[in-house]
């Protein structure tokens, strides 16, 4: 795969943030932070770390830095996220969705949407860490996965992930997750969630 410079599959904004990433965490030890979040893993080819500094007076994000082991889309989406959240109330930053990031970037190629999820997940983890440290753990949203397919032990999180990876039909969802391949009782629920997540992430 290669792209000539005149013909990027990415928007100019993505290209700009990839070529000149903002707010990269250069030296982890030199940056005092109030919250730190890490998500993803190296085996899957992507990992993201986000650290935040909070202005305690008005509970806004004073600074946001990041590091990633990830592709161009992960770099660009986290770079723009780090700019979006500066000065934003912590509670509001907690609500940022991958769709918000994609909108800010103009758009991402569809099979790259899941890369933008990393940044906002890591940001939420950093905010969770901040809440935890500041005795505000009541604010932490417990996001527990719900098992949809009992036979193959597939959760709603995995269905959402499959949608981000490109699954659009029930058949593709089965290819990604193997759900519904034993007794098939979860088909109705899985189809509903499929539509819900497609709508959530792809409008």
């Amino acid at each position, binding site marked *: *795969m290669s*792209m*000539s410079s005149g013909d990027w599959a990415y928007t100019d904004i993505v290209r700009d943030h990839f070529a000149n*990433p903002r707010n990269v965490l250069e030296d982890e030890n030199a940056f005092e932070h109030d919250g730190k979040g890490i998500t993803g893993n*190296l*085996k899957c080819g992507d990992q993201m770390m986000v650290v935040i500094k909070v202005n305690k007076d008005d509970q806004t994000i004073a600074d946001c830095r990041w590091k*990633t082991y990830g*592709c161009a889309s992960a*770099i660009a989406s986290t770079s723009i996220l780090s700019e979006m959240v500066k000065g934003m109330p912590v509670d509001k930053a907690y609500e940022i969705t991958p769709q918000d990031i994609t909108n800010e970037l103009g758009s991402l190629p569809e099979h790259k949407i899941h890369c933008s999820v990393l940044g906002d997940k890591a940001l939420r983890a950093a905010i969770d860490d901040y809440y935890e440290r500041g005795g505000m753990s009541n604010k932490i949203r417990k996001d527990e996965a719900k098992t949809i397919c009992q036979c193959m032990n597939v959760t709603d999180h995995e269905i959402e992930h499959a949608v981000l990876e490109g699954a659009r039909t029930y058949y593709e969802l089965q290819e990604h997750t193997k759900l519904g391949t034993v007794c098939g009782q979860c088909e109705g629920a899985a189809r509903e969630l499929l539509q819900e997540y497609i709508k959530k992430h792809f409008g």
Partner: protein
Amino acid sequence: MPEREVYFDHNATTPLHPEVKAVMAEAMECYGNPSSLHASGRRSRAMVEQARERVARFINASPEEIIFVGSGSEANNTVLSVLSCPSGHCTCGVKRGRGILTTRIEHPCILETSKCLSDRGVPVTFCAVDSFGKVSMKELEEAVTDKTGLVSVMMANNEIGTIQDIKTIAKLAHEKGALFHTDAVQAVGKIPVDVKDLDVDFLSLSGHKIYGPKGIGALYIKKGVAFCSLIRGGHQEQGRRAGTENTIGIVGLGKAVEMRAAEMAEETVRLGKWKEVLRAGIEKDIPDVRFNGHPHDCLANTLNVSFEGVEGEAILLYLDLEGIAVSTGSACASGSLDPSHVLLATGVPVEDAHGSIRVSMGRDNTEGDVQYLLKKLPAIIQRVRGMSTAYAGRSK
């Protein structure tokens, strides 16, 4: 604008050779159907047969042993599918009920066809390779039995360039009464290929990997080996591949192999030298790298290298911003979840497979291109590592 445009992705595809382009432009004037009896048809027929002779000569085959197909993938699909045909009336049914033996590092068109046939009940075995990508002869000897109908092993690997000992493997297959096929799409035009010396039954090759056009390939079928058509509905190509001939593509392929015959030997020496320059330069300027593939039995144009702690698609696109085109084994670039199956099969750790880059040089490259890559690459790797969560910088 980048200061230079460097194309280092010749294993993906190659630009048309100027002389190929010229003969194709001429062939565009010749519209007759090669199957027609009138003068216009006869002119097209003559072009097609001349190209067939050229392709045959290039691999030391006879013209009647060559059929033209739409691509290397079609050639590979055809061999596997036809030989597994369950029909009792099929002339090539001699191997009916026997299995296919192939390797874990084949091109997806072999792997996926094999998996599909396996779903239909054909016994399929995927043979392991060693850390250099060489087929394990010991495992192969055990795996080939009198229940094996076809052994299919690629001659040279597209990702790491490792070249297999095809002659020995073909002999082994024949000793057990199996037929032997090799996917030589990456080998033909880069190393000398002689079907008689290698004693293969089938060989696939492709036009666009050797400075010919896309959409044309050829399949060598040894004289006397039973074979029937996958694409049906016409008498073309001795009834072995229906469909009106792609005359312009065929003419291009014929010229492409002729040019390869003239240019290949000198080019191999030149690219091999530059590969060593590249390897030494990367080793000197970039810590924590790993070279993938075989140190000697490797295509002269191909260098595959992994950089610790970085993701390959990011490297690819930073190089792209500098005007340099390479490819990567990272999952992110392919849209799939897993990185290169070839690197994983050679035992490269998953992280290093994600962080791999393939440089594949070609006839149009210059030494200046090699120096340009060596100038740009260290800073890019350092930069990506600087923002990586996964690089500890052991040797820094």
